């Protein structure tokens, strides 16, 4: 491998160039050769993919044009990220911020504008080098890998739980299974420190996809897939990681399609098809610091915390406004309480969200779920989950920022932000469904976003809501976000009811989070994405409830805002 010989590097860097324009291809090839790189050119994205699959590990980096007739450059990027995990540089003639943003979101490690200059190409080795560096670090830093694993397990548990709930069957039993699963892993973490890197060959990926299809996309869990795939040596982690990638991939595809439908302006709007109840999907994505070595979290700790949380949950259920007969719906899991996260880790922000999963599988929340099912009648709660991101590549990580800011932001986020001391937490919330409800949700989000401290970056990715009832108040959204705000400001972090009705749950722990050292983002870009998707928005149709709210968005003139204004939301996130 070219990297083996440190003195020679970056000479001989193996570059695959993909461009449908033969003239550019010729020029790029020449330029790269002049940089002493080993160049392979290719005029079609599909062919490029084929080459990459056939000659696995024969390339260090890919440079691809964005506009290609046979396959969108972004799609190629997805495939490469998913299958071979190579750094990919995108290029195009247009430097439209939205396009560049899209490239970065899809995992491009760089985005060059044509005409591309020699000096830019000469420098591309850095992406390869950076990646290698992180891989090495990843192996060396297995101490924190342990922690991460614990951390991940929690989330995976969440995932499964969520899926089970979605399946609406046997929640209890499966929950136990999951718990068992988690403890198993926790105990074995010490031994299985180094996570072997699995190369997802086409075959393996196909097996994976088959397994997913067999199980049904709604019900998949890493373990099930693993069992079905029956590949020796493959671990649950590997599968989980891949599953997550796969989900992200699918969701991006979906998003893309939707974008096409909704029009160019609405880039991040993901209006997820058929969902029969209101769903608030929050996903907090964070780029952990130095290999996330701040994960001093033990699952026990989390447990303890969530136990603390439990009574509180009970409380929230009992509290007044919710208790409206019939129509009222319980918060399903609107109970992420960042303040409960006591982990004194640099990743406090993340960890706080991690708690979420744990809440869910504690007893009270379980009952809540059940209740919710009955309360909401024909509308079963659904939960959407996302996996924590496992793979530690920068590109992928960036790819995970599915909810990065729009180009026209006042303070667009630049890659540099990722390395800035305060962690970038992006939060995306998506409620599914009806257009009408977007406007309901939006104003409040706006309000609370504005108040977010700069340390915290929140993107409301998409909000959609669909309810059987005409009045939908997604009060939770507001408060959830405000809890985030609290996170960064070091003040009380309340979530929904917690804020209104359960002041007991205040800031003791919140401060810990904020006090945590967030400065170690720079080098290690291993990303963890926390799926907070389990937060089912609690639906209430009760007018009383509205009055109880601090921000009653029905008073907000913005109410009338339509979808098209939605991007505004993002605009305010960084204000």
């Amino acid at each position, binding site marked *: 491998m070219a990297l083996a010989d440190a003195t020679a590097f970056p000479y001989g860097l193996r570059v695959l160039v993909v461009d449908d*324009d*033969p003239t550019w291809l*010729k020029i790029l090839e*020449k330029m790269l050769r002049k940089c002493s790189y080993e160049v392979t050119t290719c005029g079609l994205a599909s062919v490029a993919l084929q080459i990459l699959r056939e000659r696995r590990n024969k390339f260090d980096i890919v440079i691809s044009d964005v*506009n290609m007739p046979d396959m969108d450059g972004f799609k190629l990027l997805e495939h490469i990220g998913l299958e071979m995990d190579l750094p990919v540089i995108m290029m195009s003639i*247009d430097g439209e911020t939205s396009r560049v943003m899209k490239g970065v979101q899809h995992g491009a490690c760089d985005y060059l504008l044509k*005409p591309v200059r*020699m000096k830019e190409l000469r420098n591309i080795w850095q992406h390869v080098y950076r990646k290698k560096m992180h891989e090495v670090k990843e192996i060396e830093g297995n101490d924190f890998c342990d922690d991460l694993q614990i951390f991940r397990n929690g989330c995976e548990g969440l995932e499964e739980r969520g899926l089970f709930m979605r399946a609406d069957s046997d929640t209890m039993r499966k929950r136990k299974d999951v718990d068992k699963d988690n403890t198993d892993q926790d105990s074995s973490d010490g031994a299985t420190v180094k996570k072997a890197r699995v190369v997802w060959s086409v075959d393996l990926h196909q097996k994976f996809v088959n397994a997913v299809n067999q199980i049904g996309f709604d019900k998949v869990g890493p373990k099930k897939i693993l069992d079905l795939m029956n590949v020796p040596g493959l671990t649950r982690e590997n599968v989980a990681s891949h599953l997550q990638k796969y989900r992200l991939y699918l969701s991006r595809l979906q998003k893309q399609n939707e974008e096409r439908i909704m029009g160019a302006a609405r880039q991040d709007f993901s209006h997820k098809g058929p969902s029969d109840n209101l769903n608030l999907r929050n996903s907090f994505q964070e780029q952990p610091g130095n290999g996330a070595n701040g994960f001093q979290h033990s699952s026990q700790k989390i447990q303890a915390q969530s136990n603390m949380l439990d009574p509180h949950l009970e409380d929230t259920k009992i509290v007044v406004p919710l208790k409206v007969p019939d129509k009222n719906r319980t918060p399903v899991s609107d109970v992420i309480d960042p303040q409960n996260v006591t982990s004194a880790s640099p990743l406090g922000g993340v960890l706080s969200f991690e708690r979420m999963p744990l809440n869910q599988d504690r007893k009270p929340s379980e009952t809540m779920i059940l209740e919710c099912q009955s309360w909401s009648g024909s509308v079963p709660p659904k939960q959407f989950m996302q996996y924590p991101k496992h793979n530690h590549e920068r590109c992928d990580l960036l790819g995970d920022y599915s909810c990065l800011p729009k180009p026209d932001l006042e303070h667009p986020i630049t890659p540099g932000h990722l390395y800035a001391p305060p962690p970038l937490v992006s939060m995306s919330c998506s409620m599914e469904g009806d257009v009408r409800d977007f406007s309901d949700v939006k104003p409040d989000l706006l309000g609370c976003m504005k108040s977010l401290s700069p340390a915290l970056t929140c993107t409301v990715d998409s909000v959609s809501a669909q309810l059987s009832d005409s009045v939908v108040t997604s009060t939770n959204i507001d408060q959830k976000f405000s809890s985030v705000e609290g996170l960064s400001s070091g003040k009380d972090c309340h979530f929904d009811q917690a804020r209104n009705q359960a002041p007991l749950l205040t800031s003791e722990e919140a401060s810990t989070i904020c006090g945590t050292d967030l400065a170690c983002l720079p080098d290690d870009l291993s990303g963890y994405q926390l799926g907070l998707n389990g937060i089912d928005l609690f639906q209430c149709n009760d007018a009383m409830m509205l009055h109880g709210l601090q921000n009653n968005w029905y008073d907000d003139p913005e109410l009338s805002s339509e979808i098209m204004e939605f991007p505004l939301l993002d605009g305010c996130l960084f204000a």
Partner: protein
Amino acid sequence: MDYSNLRRQAASMKKSLFDQGYLDEQFCQVEDLQDEASPNFAEEVVTLFFKDSARLISNIEQALEKYPKDFNKWDAYMQQLKGSCSSIGASRMKSECMSFRDYCGQGNIEGCMKSFQKVKREHGVLRQKLEAYFQLLRQAGPAGAATRPAM
């Protein structure tokens, strides 16, 4: 004929191409890539460009007929041509491509058609001029001579 004289002619021709906006800096970049390993690199690239851009132009021509008023399609095709223009720094042609795309954005069919004719014209003119330029260079002797001071 005197080689240095030919070289001078080539240089002044190139300068006028720049002055009249036919070419931009990218063309120099391409010329700079020329070396012993590929002494005719610039000419090869330019030849390739004209071959490919002719194909793209005929694509656009077909699209204009086949998909009337399908501005998105037109735009996409023109985008390709524009990208191609940027490769050799054919700046006048490129800016005409851009105005075509602007007309697409406005839904101005007439503008598109006019603009497309201009693109074709620019393409033809540039081809002629560059062919003459490379011919001069070839006559002037060994490759790269035009960019080096006369011995």
